[in-house]
């Protein structure tokens, strides 16, 4: 297809406007139509359309949890779709397994690389496709293996010995190896999931050069990123996902940063958040100068009784790390925390819980609940001594307590002996909440309290949080969902690269401002 290459040899981002309708646009190499994916309790993708043109760089942007990763996983065969169709070169394909995606020329480079650290660069590039020496025995043809790898690397301008073990490479170099691997499989579609997350500016330039070189060779690229500057530097078109739906598809030259942010955030700010209370109590928690090398830098703030303090920022801004530091789950290098005027020992979660601080983790299934245990057992886990007599657990009192919380929090479960594995996301979150309430918490830190929870259940969680606050509990709510942050918080802290970029009282702020602070553009504008 020579004409395709001719097109892309021109500056591709000028194509749609410069050439207009006089010339036919490059055809779609990939069409994903009406893709729907449901998880228990939440719809991750709702009839999403995604078209990738031949030889273009297509950015995929959206807030955390908007559905980007799910869409890519479906393309890569790592997840199955519930509805919709995928067309490659106009033919419908069913991608059931990662292997099939590879065979079809689709290659995904994830944030955490799929490289084997102790093997050399060339072994990694050729993994699973090692050339075999002719003759019996099926021995690997090492010269050919290194030769092929070296050739690919030269094509891409990578200046490394193919025999270097991957474990000795920098993150950026590993990424290059991943790309070389993708190219060597004759991938026609390369998906990069947040490739820039850990790169320096210089490395980023190299990456962009490489991506452009790929496109010149006829490869189409899907580029997923949070960082809008990059999207404007590299992409030809952009698709914005929001809440599992397509919010916008535009050529990059017909949009602006503000426009994209609006599409990403732009939910109706319906009055569906519980009312704030006017009077807050005295200060209950004071965080002083918490630092941890490379992650948190001198963070200080206070929290009052009955207050909901929203903390937001991009992935990697240090939100979860801050929560874990206050909770004693990770060590800190300096700084301290005062609870009701007493200095806390930040040595362990056990200490934090005993002193009245609790953390409802972002990842309920991995960190918040023991999924194979029952509602009853999870409810009392953090304060089992309260229903014990000596060493023995008093089953009757324990059941009573669990039943009490099931009623109070309206947890939808067939009974307290149900394993929490079988509950929906919203009800699992309520069990987490029950656990912390049972532990008599004075301060509850919620990390992404409504992640993976459907709309109706979100409302209930919001109501519960507000009710806790009005009962005098101090609440820290970490969230990347801006409407939630704006709707729920009495005050908002925006983190950027481990520092507090802004502290904003509620009701005086719009999503765009928060996003600007979160992307590090606060002072400039």
């Amino acid at each position, binding site marked *: 297809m020579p004409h395709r290459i001719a097109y892309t040899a021109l500056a591709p981002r000028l194509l749609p406007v410069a050439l207009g309708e006089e010339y036919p646009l490059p055809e779609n190499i990939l069409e994903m139509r009406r893709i729907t994916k449901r998880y228990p309790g939440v719809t991750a993708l709702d009839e999403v359309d995604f078209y990738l043109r031949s030889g273009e760089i297509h950015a995929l942007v959206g807030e955390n949890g908007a559905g980007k990763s799910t869409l890519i996983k479906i393309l890569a065969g790592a997840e199955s779709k519930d509805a919709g169709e995928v067309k490659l070169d106009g033919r419908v394909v069913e991608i059931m397994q990662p292997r099939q995606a590879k065979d079809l020329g689709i290659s995904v480079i994830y944030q955490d690389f799929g490289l084997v650290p102790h093997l050399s660069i060339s072994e990694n590039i050729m993994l699973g496709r090692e050339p075999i020496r002719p003759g019996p025995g099926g021995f690997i043809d090492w010269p050919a293996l290194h030769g092929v790898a070296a050739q690919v690397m030269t094509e891409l301008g990578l200046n490394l010995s193919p025999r270097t073990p991957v474990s000795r490479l920098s993150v950026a170099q590993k990424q290059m190896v991943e790309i070389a691997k993708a190219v060597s499989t004759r991938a026609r579609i390369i998906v990069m999931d947040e490739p820039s997350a850990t790169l320096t500016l210089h490395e980023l330039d190299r990456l962009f050069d490489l991506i452009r070189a790929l496109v010149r060779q006829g490869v189409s690229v899907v580029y997923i990123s949070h960082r809008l500057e990059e999207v404007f530097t590299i992409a030809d078109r952009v698709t914005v996902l929001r809440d599992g739906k397509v919010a916008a598809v535009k050529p990059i030259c017909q949009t602006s940063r503000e426009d994209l942010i609006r599409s990403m955030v732009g939910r109706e700010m319906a009055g569906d958040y519980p009312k704030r209370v006017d009077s807050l109590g005295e200060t209950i928690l004071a965080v002083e100068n918490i630092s941890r090398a490379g992650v948190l830098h001198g963070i200080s703030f206070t929290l009052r009784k009955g207050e909901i303090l929203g903390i937001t920022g991009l992935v990697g801004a240090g939100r979860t790390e801050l929560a874990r530091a206050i909770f004693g789950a990770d060590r800190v290098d300096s700084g301290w925390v005062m609870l009701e005027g007493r200095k806390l020992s930040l040595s362990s979660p*056990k200490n934090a819980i005993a002193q009245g601080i609790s953390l409802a*983790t972002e990842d309920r299934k991995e960190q918040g609940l023991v999924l194979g245990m029952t509602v009853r057992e999870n409810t009392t886990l953090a304060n089992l001594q309260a229903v014990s007599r000596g060493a023995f657990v008093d089953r009757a009192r324990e059941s009573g307590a669990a039943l009490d919380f099931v009623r109070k929090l309206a947890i939808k479960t067939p009974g307290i002996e149900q394993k929490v594995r079988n509950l929906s996301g919203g009800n699992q979150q309520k069990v987490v909440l029950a656990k912390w309430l049972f532990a008599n918490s004075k301060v509850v830190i919620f990390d992404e309290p409504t992640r993976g929870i459907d709309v109706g259940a979100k409302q209930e969680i919001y109501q519960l949080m507000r009710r806790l606050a009005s009962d005098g509990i101090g609440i820290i709510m970490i969230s990347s969902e801006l409407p939630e942050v704006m709707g729920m918080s009495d005050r908002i802290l925006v983190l950027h690269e481990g520092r507090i970029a802004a502290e904003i009282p509620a009701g005086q702020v719009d999503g765009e401002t928060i996003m600007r602070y979160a992307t590090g553009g606060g002072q400039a504008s």
Partner: protein
Amino acid sequence: MNTDTKTIGPTQARETTQAAQAAQIPSMPGASRALLQEYSIVLIFLGVCVLFAVWTGGLFLRPDNIMNVLRQISINAVIATGMTFVIITTGNIDLSVGSVVALVAVSSARILKALALHMPIWPAIAASCALALVVGGAVGAWNGFFVTRFKVPPFISTLSMWAAARGVAFILCDGRPIWNLPIQFDTIGRGYVLEGVFGPWIPIPVIIMAVFMIVAHVILTRTRTGRYAYATGGNMEAARLSGINVRKARMIAYIASGVSAALASLVLTSRLASGQPNSGEMYELYAIAACVVGGTSLSGGKGTILGTFIGALLIGTLNNGLNLAGVESYTQNVILGLVILGAVILDQFRKRD
């Protein structure tokens, strides 16, 4: 009267079904299937018993043979009890228990002979038994210490103890079994109690096994220690973030395993009337087999002492029944291997739901 009963009957029946349905949400078929799966190993065990009863012409079911089976499984069941603790709490196995049996056999024999020279015989036996349990617990603590403090993979930590403990056992006795233990010590492994109460006599090893397993069952199901064991094995990070001392929970499991091995060793030493440095070989694998057959999950957080008991019982029954039926031991091993495989496949089916 007649009309009364006619009207009451169906109503009652309906109420019972409704109650049953309410109690067993989500659905009856699901619940009954789960029940069947939960007890499938019991059904298999009963099936095996019937098979042997017929095959041996009733010999297998004679009360004295049943007591025999129980006595034969007692050592494995006691070790498997500790192993169940470790598997539930850590999702890993303790490979050292067989060697701990040998270490405790030799050291307790030496201690007993030394003490018997200086004090009355029964206090000497009691003291050496207590010290034996301490030795077992200490070995378990050593295993746990390196797992929890130095993050040595449990497989490696207990593998190294598997090698080292047996080495120490041989060193302690110069490679020769320790004979001539006080005759009273034989009671532990060879004595009987309650003669005539249940028909036959009850061997003391069976009593030891029963008491030990009941205590372990109560600890696992009724105490905080037990709850923390399940929570730590089910999701260590969630348990830690719930304020549970997961290091302690794992230490307790390894210590329990060491103590179990020591207790089993006392029974064995007494039965053999000697401290044998090569005793207990492969016992760790039989213990693991009992746990696995009994439904303990090797990914942790799931398992029961009752299941382990039935697992040990099934293995012991196969040994005994096949012996009575005249099947030689090589074939017995093949059958045991297939049973372990079958039990795990059964467990996989259970998990799939």
